[in-house]
């Protein structure tokens, strides 16, 4: 099988702490608005860090058309709502999707963590055998992609890729391969995660949690803010998009994926640099052509220094503007790379650089000439954007998006 086709992004759906719907989300990104607030989804009063980036005003029933929210976990609700928004944004007939070979590939880190949290609470209170019998069926991470397929009446591949914090880049890459190779006509690709007590506790214990604000690239950065949300993109063959007169945000040019195979939680600069080079090779682009890097940029001391080191290895002194949207929406885990992909798509379409909103004093350890786009967005022509996802397990995935030529 040698025939492949070009794949473009024609629909964007975002359910984020700074706005629901791609317009509201991007407005927040452009302004450099942060969505950090006291945790409401669980009692955090006993935690030293009580701030997260929750989506307080999320009402799934106001968005979805088919899904009964009470039968699905919060991550699945995020994914289904974001997917519905992406389809509306694409202006495509939903019937066309459900009568063609369309599927859903969703990334996640913690899966249906709030369902598991409820299960554990009932278990501790009343014993395992008295857990609500509806919960087991809602627990598997596979239910996140299924929520999207159910909501949109899709019958193609329906798979969740739970590969931690680069999961939605992996999902995007795989969905791209499926459309490119002709195994699918359209794909909904993205990711979802929900703030939960176990995740908050774990990151705190790893010393990776910021107390109030996530400040990527800052000399005084202290870690992540746990976040949540759903981010989904509609992938469509270029020819089909052109024929129906669709608005095309960007083309997916390719991606690179590799594994450090060294350590479960510590990133490795050489391996990340290699992943970037793989991505460039597959996408058929040269490093000097990249106009913008949407960094993984978690805001932990280790991540940012490693990521910049990797960028230096590939780009030398001329690192393109590199920013972290986690400065605004926190670490949305399995949705993080998909939010990054949405930011890249809009940056290409509208011509701006998404900012690192919270940086006050750029860490001098990064060396001279690093532009992290501090504060608010800046107008710029973005022809090629690079979106980075790095994860526990040493999973690196870098996606490359370009203006359609």
């Amino acid at each position, binding site marked *: *099988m040698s025939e492949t086709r070009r794949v473009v992004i024609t629909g964007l759906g975002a359910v984020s702490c700074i706005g629901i719907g791609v317009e509201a989300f991007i407005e927040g990104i452009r302004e450099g608005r942060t969505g950090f607030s006291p945790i409401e989804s669980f009692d955090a009063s006993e935690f030293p860090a009580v701030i997260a980036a929750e989506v307080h005003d999320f009402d799934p029933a106001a968005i979805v058309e088919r899904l009964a929210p009470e039968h699905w976990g919060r991550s699945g609700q995020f994914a289904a709502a974001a997917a519905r928004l992406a389809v509306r944004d694409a202006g495509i007939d939903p019937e066309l999707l459900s009568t063609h070979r369309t599927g859903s590939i969703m990334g996640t880190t913690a899966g249906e963590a709030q369902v598991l949290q409820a299960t554990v609470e009932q278990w501790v209170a009343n014993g395992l055998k008295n857990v609500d019998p509806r919960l087991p069926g809602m627990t*598997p991470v596979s239910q996140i992609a299924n929520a999207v397929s159910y909501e949109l009446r899709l019958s193609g591949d*329906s798979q969740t890729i739970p590969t931690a914090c680069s999961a939605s880049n992996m999902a995007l890459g795989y969905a791209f391969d499926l459309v490119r*190779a002709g195994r699918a006509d359209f794909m909904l690709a993205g990711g979802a995660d929900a703030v939960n007590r176990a995740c908050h506790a774990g990151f705190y*214990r790893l010393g990776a949690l910021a107390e109030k604000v996530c400040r990527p690239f800052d000399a005084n950065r202290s870690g992540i803010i746990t976040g949540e949300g759903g981010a989904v993109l509609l992938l469509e063959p270029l020819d089909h998009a052109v024929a129906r007169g669709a608005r095309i945000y960007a083309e997916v040019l390719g991606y690179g994926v590799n594994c450090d195979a060294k350590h*479960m939680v510590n990133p490795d600069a050489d391996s990340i640099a290699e992943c970037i080079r793989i991505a460039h090779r597959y996408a058929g682009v040269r490093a000097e052509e990249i106009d913008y890097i949407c960094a993984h940029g978690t805001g932990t001391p280790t991540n940012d220094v490693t990521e910049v080191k990797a960028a230096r290895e590939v780009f030398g002194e001329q690192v393109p503007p590199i920013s972290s949207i986690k400065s605004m929406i926190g670490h949305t885990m399995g949705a993080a790379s998909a939010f990054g992909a949405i930011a890249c798509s809009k940056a290409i379409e509208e011509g701006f650089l998404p900012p690192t909103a919270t940086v006050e004093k750029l860490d001098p350890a990064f060396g001279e000439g690093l532009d992290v786009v501090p504060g608010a967005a800046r107008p710029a022509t973005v022809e090629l954007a690079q979106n980075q996802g790095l994860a526990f397990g040493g*999973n690196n995935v870098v996606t490359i998006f370009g203006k359609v030529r």
Partner: protein
Amino acid sequence: MSLVLTETPLAITSCGVVSPAGLGLEALERALRHGLETPAEPKESPDGYPPRPLWAIPDLGVAELLGRKGLRHVDRLTKLGLVACKLALEGAGEELDADARAHTGVVLATNTGSLTSMVEVGIDTLVQKKPYLVNPGNFPNVVTNACTGQIAIRNSLRAVNSVVSSGQAASLAAIRFARTAIEQGRASRLLVGGVEELSPAAAWGWHLSGALTEDAPIGEGCALFLVEDAEAVRSSGRTALAELLACEVAYQGLGTAREQGEGLRHCVERALERSGVSPGEVDAVCLSATNHWVRDQLEEWAVGEELGRPVPQVQVGEVLGELYSASGAMQVAALLARWREPARQPRIGLVTSMGEDGNVGCLVVREWR
């Protein structure tokens, strides 16, 4: 609008199997012929297990197989994956050199990861003096890709490392992922398969959900296959165990159970067509939902309709217990186990999946010649 495809086959050059029958294909073959000798009980747990048969893997011999180093914070699910990986890599004959390992990846099916690890952290947030006093050494185990990460680390496998979740059909979805990844040049070799761990949380989950037939046993296991492009294997004059032909999956969670059966039927039809195999050529069928109410009959119906004649079944769920994420991979392993007995012609087997969540799938497997 989809391009019409004939799939390029993947060759299984080696396999690693850990099941309630024990380690390896020979033990599996024996169990498939005669049943489990004496099913092993899971280790006792303070939370207790539901009142139904539970078939654990007998003595795993982890220390002898994996050494004692670095396993303190590794959970059972990951150990199953590591043991299966070791068996698969050792069975490959020639050891993979550093360059080959750099281009080898891992794709594993699991729908939950280690529930034991996740629940442990979750419970700690409730019962410890402070909610954040979870064990930091265990925290990395809560990610669903902990097993694939450990396999990569301990074997220096540096290509794509991924996990696929798709309910009962997860292993078939993983095989489909592997094919696409190899075809698109993301890796030259992959370890692909599925893993499931027996735990109180998983056993009670099945029991409470009411999805399984009354006396259906719950099992555990991992089957991993070392795969690469079949053409590459042939042209280099090497041999293999079998070829994975087309693998088709679909989501059918929208309709009635009957419509799910129809959906599976279409998968079987498409998979045969894209494999260039006619229904008359199929020698054996291996079903997945044999422990599940309603689905068991639907799956059998769908396959029967498409093949149009009774075809011998290789039974897995009945022999090893419910294997959920790992079921599809274990079904493939079961065909390989049965094919250890030589035959005149290369045999063709059909592996199907059908689950409560609506995901269905069909894979065509052909004995290597």
